[in-house]
């Protein structure tokens, strides 16, 4: 009850349409060291970049799911102006399949919340960042991602950090949007790009063809 009431206040206080973005972050042991440090800085940069845009910071909602030996929702959906980036710690395996399914489920739930409150919304994004090989099955996840993309339920991006299993990622990512390789540790650039993309989307008018900013700042061609 309290949760519902808080939710009601949240949408009454901020009636802007929402642009949901789930960060699906690999925090397995292979990410330890420089990588996880750079990832943490990247998420901070994402917040900082969006905060400069008053409209986007009230429209873009971030959620973070981390996955290692377990899948954990470490940040439920929150608008950027209220987002406090966590410090991620790397350890354990890479339960990627389960994490993807959780992200899709979370988005479905969020859309129901939007509908309940009469809040308008944009097509949600999932950004998967991984450097490893999944330790669980990705078959169901791949199938569900393809279906969700076909039904225009979600926009799915996969980013491979050095060491990632590109073959499996290609299977998961939709054919029209193959996974991209991260240039060294260009997390900062990746997240600035993500914030710019969110800015473009969160103010797109009906039926506008969205041109995303170029990815060459962070991706290997």
């Amino acid at each position, binding site marked *: 009850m309290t949760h519902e009431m808080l939710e009601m206040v949240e949408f009454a206080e901020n*009636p*802007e*349409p929402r642009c949901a973005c789930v960060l699906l972050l690999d925090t397995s042991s292979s990410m330890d060291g420089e990588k996880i440090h750079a990832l943490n800085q990247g998420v901070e940069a994402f917040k900082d970049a969006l905060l400069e845009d*008053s*409209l986007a910071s009230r429209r873009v909602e971030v959620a973070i799911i981390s996955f290692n030996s377990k899948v954990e929702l470490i940040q439920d959906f929150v608008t950027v102006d209220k987002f406090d980036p966590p410090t991620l710690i790397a350890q354990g395996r890479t339960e990627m399949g389960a994490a993807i399914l959780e992200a899709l489920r979370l988005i479905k739930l969020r859309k129901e919340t939007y*509908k309940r*409150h*009469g*809040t*308008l*919304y*944009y*097509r949600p994004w999932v950004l998967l960042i991984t450097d490893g090989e999944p330790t669980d099955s990705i078959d169901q996840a791949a199938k569900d991602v393809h279906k969700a993309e076909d039904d*225009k339920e979600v926009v799915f991006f996969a980013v491979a950090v050095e060491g990632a299993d590109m073959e499996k990622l290609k299977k998961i990512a939709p054919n029209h949007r193959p996974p991209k390789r991260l240039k060294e540790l260009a997390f900062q650039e990746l997240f600035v790009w993500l914030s710019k993309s969110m800015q473009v*989307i969160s*103010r*797109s*008018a*009906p*039926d*506008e*063809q969205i041109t995303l900013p170029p990815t060459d700042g962070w991706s290997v061609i």
Partner: protein
Amino acid sequence: MTQMKEILAKARSLIRLWWDILTRRPPSPEQKPSSPGDEQVPQSSLPKSEDLVEHTVVTILPEAARPAPTAWRVLGASVQGSRHERLGIPCQDACEWKSTTDGTLVIAVADGAGSATHSHVGAQTAVRVVIEHLADFDRLQKIDSEKSWYALATETLEKAVGAIKIQARSYDLAMREFATTLSFVVLRQHWIAAFQIGDGAIVVRDSDKQLHTLTYPVSGEYVNETVFVTSMSAVDSARVVFRESSVSHLCIFTDGVQMLALQMPTASPHAPFFESLFGFLDSLDASAERLESFLRSCKVRERTDDDITIVLASRCGYEG
């Protein structure tokens, strides 16, 4: 003073004579100038030419011996959104209105698609055609139900789409480059009728002073999706309204204003927003320039960077 009255009475009898000649009616005894209070001519027997009505009633006899046709105060403005300003894209909204001397007001508003290169041409064409087609005494005279309105409204839409098709051909471009939403409304003495494709909305204040959302946005699942006149599903998804009511105020607007104006999910009007706009319209300092500067103000711009169009109308002589 008595002299004045005599002159007026003479003028009236002369007009009556012209009227009868023009409308080819024998002068009837109860319409003699000696009983000026009885000059209630039923609407259906009015001459069809708007000019004639203007000369007989409005210009010469302002104190109106027959029921005064409703006059409307109308203000409207379209302003370019800050995003389009930055990108050098023209304002893709368009609006037009026309009031005829028989007391009819027709307003049309269109919001060109952001993704289409010539949507501003599509929007302008659509509103022009709607006004041309609907500000027509004969056509409106036949409207008495939602069914007859639907027939006229879809016919009007066809005309608009036809005109856009011709434009597209002359530019040698696909129809979708001219995609636009379209909503229009007809206000008469005793009824109001609206038709809408795509987003935007119409809010009215009835004579009972209550605010009502007459039409509300037609959109897809996501906020950046909508329906256009050029869409296959245009007619099926259209909002059609016909109501026998005498509204005192009306506001028609494009989706740029939606966030400020409507409370979702019920699409109920945000009362303070409309009360202040209608109050402004009825005030002495109401002007299109002032409306425009309101639409350009930081407070509005903070909530949207889309093109914005608002047209406001109020019935003159309405005792607010």
